């Protein structure tokens, strides 16, 4: 189990991480989610023992992190890269021996993993001869080839094509079933919803919400309505004026609404039916993670804490 205990990190007068606490359980995937600049990378660096917290402590299996935990950890940073001029094999061997593997073990596992991810003949190729996607795979192999118990993946899918993203997701699921602790950081809240068991929403260096993903979603209820329709959008104004719901997003033939407390979906549907030519879809759903994030941040830190790239 990974425990982040009231950790604070300052850079000069700027507080990047402010008294952050959370736990990550083995065999589960924890999503550390928040916009850019929220403090995800700063938190991860302290877990990875790259920087030290000013206050608080990070523990893995009850002991403070250190050299020992680095050997049992795999870290895929958001800003990542490889030695361009090294051969793929040399690269993987070097990074794995730094994690404590013997050269022979490192070589064997490098071959194994390359084979599994479709790069059996890459071993003697120079890294910069590989395509971007191939390099991403090599990078991922370097993160997991020493069989880490704690795996930290910062934006693991950025720059990956859908096929490789699926391949990677499979390996991640496998590692989870193996009982390893996985920490997953992303600013694209939607993209990780399906993958995470637990989430930890972070904004302005503070945790605004954490817990099991299912439980959180349930807590916010099915107060979101998705309408797809043919015809005029005029009904949206009427719904808002009548105080039935708030329009979250709207496109030409689609709208997302949040019901006001105590309003039932059928009350909205009645208005919709009076105005549009036809209804293609009307669904009452759990709010997307983005909306939950915005609501929580608004409540706790005020409107100005919501970054512009998160749309309401």
């Amino acid at each position, binding site marked *: 189990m990974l425990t982040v205990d009231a950790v604070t990190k300052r850079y000069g007068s700027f507080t990047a991480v402010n008294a952050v606490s959370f736990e990550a359980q083995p065999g589960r995937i924890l999503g550390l989610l928040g916009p850019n600049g929220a403090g995800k990378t700063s938190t991860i*660096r302290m877990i*990875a*023992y*790259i*920087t*030290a917290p*000013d206050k608080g402590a990070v523990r893995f299996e009850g002991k403070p992190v250190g*050299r020992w935990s*680095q*050997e049992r*950890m795999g*870290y*895929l*940073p958001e*800003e*990542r*890269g*490889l*030695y*361009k*001029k*090294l051969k793929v094999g*040399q690269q993987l061997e*070097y*990074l794995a*021996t*730094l*994690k404590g593997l013997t050269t022979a073990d490192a070589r064997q596992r490098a071959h194994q993993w390359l084979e599994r991810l479709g790069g059996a003949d890459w071993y003697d190729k120079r890294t910069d001869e590989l395509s971007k996607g191939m390099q991403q795979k090599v*990078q991922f192999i*370097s*993160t997991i080839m020493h069989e880490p118990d704690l795996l930290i993946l910062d934006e693991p899918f950025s720059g990956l094509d859908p096929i490789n993203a699926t391949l990677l997701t499979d390996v991640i699921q496998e590692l989870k079933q193996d009982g390893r602790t996985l920490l997953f950081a992303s600013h694209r809240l939607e993209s990780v919803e399906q993958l995470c068991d637990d989430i930890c929403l972070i904004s302005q260096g503070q945790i605004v919400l954490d817990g099991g993903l299912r439980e959180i979603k349930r807590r916010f209820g099915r107060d979101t309505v998705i309408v797809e329709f043919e015809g005029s959008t005029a009904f949206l104004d009427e719904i808002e004026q009548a105080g039935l719901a708030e329009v979250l997003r709207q496109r030409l033939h689609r709208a997302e609404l949040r019901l006001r407390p105590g309003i039932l979906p059928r009350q909205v549907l009645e208005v919709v039916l009076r105005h549009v030519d036809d209804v293609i879809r009307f669904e009452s759903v759990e709010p997307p993670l983005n909306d939950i994030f915005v609501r929580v941040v608004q409540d706790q830190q005020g409107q100005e804490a919501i970054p512009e790239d998160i749309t309401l």
Partner: protein
Amino acid sequence: MDQIWIVLKSEFLRRVRSRWFVLTTLLGPIVMVALTVLPGVITAFAFDRGGRTVAVIDETGRLTPIMQTLAGDQFELVPQQDRSIAEVRQAVIDGEYEGYLHLTAGVMEGTSPVTFYSPDGGGLSIRRSIQDLIDQAVQRQRLLEQDAPPEVLDILNANVGLDMVKLNEEGEEEADQSLAISAVGFVMGFIIYFAVFIYGGTVMYAVIEEKASRVVEVVISSVKPFNLLMGKLLGVGAMGFLQMVLWLVLIVGGATALGFVASASMDPATLNLPADASQQQVMEAANLTLPDISPVVYVWFLLFFLGGYFLYASLFAAIGSAVEQQQDAQGLTFPLTFLVIIPILFITFIIESPNSTLSVVLSMIPFFSPILMVVRVAVSDVSLWQVLLSYSLLIGTFVGSVWLSSRIYRVGILMYGKKPSIADLIKWSRYA
């Protein structure tokens, strides 16, 4: 320690296996040997170049034959009894002769000069050979005219070599090689200067590359930044040390072999050596040997090279960690570059007066001693305590610079975005 070793090994191997290392290791000595030995070879062979045709207007009427004998195949002297001076002059301008020599009647008595006319004004080597030729011819002719016995002439004909001998403190006599030794001091100083720049630069670019390619964050999730920095410094240092040793071996071996071959084809007489001079003497006279230098000098050379390398390379690494691309490093490396250049300005002074107070003081300053103490040790006998004191100061300083650099490095490698100033680097070094 284990980690430093892994980094060291990786950095060392990837450089030693590179084409750059093989090429510079092999070509470096060729260039250096060529630069040291070629001037000697060229001068030596220039004297030998035969086939110069020179017209002679001999108003004494008796010097030409003897000059022709003495000149051998160095000059072809063509007497011009039938032509007027104007005609000879025209012939020279037309390229028939390289020049003409006007021996006035008073030459034998020393009352009037000899004049050599040539379209290009001659050159130093022609001037010297003609001067020698005339001196000898006149001398010989005068002796002949005084009926000197042939034995006297033989004695005069024998070449006399000049051996320079230096007295040292122990009262032993040593062959004086001051010129060659100065050259060695100069070359050693410059090699350290270049080495500090090249290998220091190698470390800096390695750090920048690691940061620019963003691989560094993966690496420091496995390795302490200090260990990573030390592994790099030691790995590149080991590569540099190996290259230096290979260069020394190749230069000493190559120069000896080349000098040997070149000297075998030379006539001792042209170097003012006795005819039975040994090949070693010929090589020395022709400037074709490395002066014999105490092995201690080579040892200090390598030790000071390492000290200077660690001092400067660690600081270069700190700068590399702060920037994202090579161009951005220039402003920050300027103070360092300046520090390396200062001792170069003093090399000549140190060679001329290696034991003056200023020389002693300069060779104690850690930022200068890698170059200046080596020059002093090469050109003079420096007392051991001075060398040891200078080296201790150097070690102390590079331990300090490695420590300071590792503090800057550990912050710098994670800093992206704005271009840092020296003040930022100092601020980083104070972070907890």
